[in-house]
């Protein structure tokens, strides 16, 4: 009898609560509609990876062919090349970007002069620039006819000009450099905010004890940065199957001669869909990325949650 009464009031309060929150549901509506269109409506389209796409029949009318698209994809060298490029570039980015960002953050944190803000502002600036313009900046240096490096730098050294956009051996370095140039300012802000959160008293007592700046950095700052470094690295590992499409497509100017070292899963999917009209391969590669990417993000996030619950995405 008493139980029933309780259920009754629960229903009543739920009703009351629903009524109170009606305006809130309306507020959430536009965002939910957008999520539905942009993120959820495309999901059924993933079945395309198991179909032979026929534009007339549409996604769901096209014939089902099982794993054939994947068989073809993994029979080509492409599958290996794009997976290797995507993962190796990301690993290089993680190492180079972390070292540079931590280094710059420490320098900024130790800076007592007012110029600190100016430095930070300048170093962050490349982050704001679109990849299209970055490709122009790179072109200014590397253009084989007019580029600064061929005409000023190599000429002064008495060396022959290099056709940069034709020679793939240079590109792994160029892309790692361009990426570091673009994101160091961003990453260093995150490390900087961790350093600024460290209790200054630790440094004061260390310096009273005669500890040099260098020792303070290696014995205090870096060990205290470790959790942030681990977290950032884990989250980057979670995104290791994704690449910055603009970096790999715009900066090498979509040059076929460089594909062996610039093709990543994202550029492959794009070219398959819009340049080569190879829908089957493109959708197979896309699903391959979505699923492995999902597993990686999920695992990385679980790992983060174990170490530091506050930093986890969810």
């Amino acid at each position, binding site marked *: 009898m008493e139980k029933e009464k309780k259920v009754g009031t629960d229903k009543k309060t739920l009703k009351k609560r629903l009524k109170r929150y009606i305006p809130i549901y309306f507020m959430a509506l536009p965002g939910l509609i957008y999520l539905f269109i942009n993120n959820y409506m495309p999901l059924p389209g993933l079945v395309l990876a198991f179909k032979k796409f026929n534009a007339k029949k549409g996604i769901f009318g096209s014939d089902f062919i099982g794993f054939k698209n994947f068989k073809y994809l993994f029979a080509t060298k492409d599958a290996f090349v794009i997976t290797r490029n995507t993962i190796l570039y990301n690993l290089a980015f993680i190492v180079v970007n972390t070292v540079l960002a931590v280094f710059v953050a420490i320098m900024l944190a130790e800076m007592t002069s007012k110029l600190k803000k100016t430095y930070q502002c300048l170093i962050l600036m490349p982050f704001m620039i679109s990849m299209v313009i970055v490709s122009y*900046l790179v072109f200014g240096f590397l253009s084989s006819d007019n580029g600064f490096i061929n005409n000023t730098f190599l000429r002064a050294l008495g060396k022959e000009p290099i056709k940069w956009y034709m020679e793939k051996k240079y590109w792994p370095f160029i892309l790692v450099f361009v990426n570091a140039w673009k994101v160091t300012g961003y990453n260093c802000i995150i490390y900087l905010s961790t350093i600024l959160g460290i209790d200054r008293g630790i440094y004061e007592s260390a310096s009273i004890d005669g500890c040099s700046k260098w020792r303070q950095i290696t014995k205090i700052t870096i060990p205290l940065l470790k959790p942030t470094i681990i977290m950032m690295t884990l989250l980057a590992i979670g995104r290791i199957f994704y690449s910055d499409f603009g970096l790999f497509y715009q900066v090498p100017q979509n040059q076929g001669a460089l594909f062996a070292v610039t093709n990543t899963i994202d550029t492959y999917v794009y070219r398959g869909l819009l340049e080569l009209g190879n829908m089957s391969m493109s959708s197979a590669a896309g699903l391959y990325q979505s699923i492995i990417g999902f597993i990686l993000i999920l695992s990385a996030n679980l790992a983060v949650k174990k170490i530091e619950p506050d930093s986890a995405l969810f």
Partner: protein
Amino acid sequence: MRSDKKFQIFSHAVLILFSLLALLPMILILTSSLTDNNEIIANGYTYFPKKWSLYAYEYIFKTGNSVVHAYGISVVLTIVGTALALTITTLLAYAISKKGMPGRGVITFLVVFSMLFNGGLVPTYIIYTNVLGIKNSFLSLLIPGLLMNGFNVMLMKSYFVSSIPEEILDAAYIDGAGEVRTFLSVVTPLSKPILATVALFAGIGYWNDWMNGYIYITKRTDLYSVQNLLNRMMQNIQFLSQSSSNIQNANVGLSAIPMASVRMAMAMVGLLPILVVYPFVQKYFVKGITLGGVKG
């Protein structure tokens, strides 16, 4: 004390080096765009031109309205996009910050899951072109991908949860303010920093986006944003003259285009708004990155 001074000098040296590395590519674009075209052909892009020239800029703005037009598209896109993005992001974030709301968990899950798993380019492209049919329209610049993302929603939600005391909201409710009234007159004034940050993220996203135009605008070149125009020009410098006059004339005029310097002047034209706005918004940008913390 002495080692401290040495250290300061060292860190100045390092930071000057990094600042220069960040700036030098942009300075090369600037000086090159102001160099006489013949000098570029002889000596390449340079930091110290012997013969300065404004011809590239004159050429860009004389050859017609394609640059000005693209600027117009970019400005309208950025303003409309930022306003819409800020509105729907804030509203959704506020909704999922409401602790007592039934269904909050489901909505939060929908937002978080969208950050973890997505259909990728192929299904998204098919939905926008075949199902919604927005290819070659202004909507295709505005809607795909950029309007809202889970990251900004979660960033805002955690700001609402942590920085707006529940007591204030409860007090407003007890005083008879409805949810909408509370949101407008209590929540938004207290959330200015996060609103500025998300608006900034969205604004930069729209101004810098080239992908939507590249993928969805295949015919209507009059809808090209600055980024799309730049993109197209890198592949094909003739585009600049083709889009403003008719094609027969363009082929005649082609030999007269000071291509090398025009390229760099165009890049400068695309870069300029960012350089002008950046110093003023930098503060909010840094704040936003710090708020997002490791989640970025």
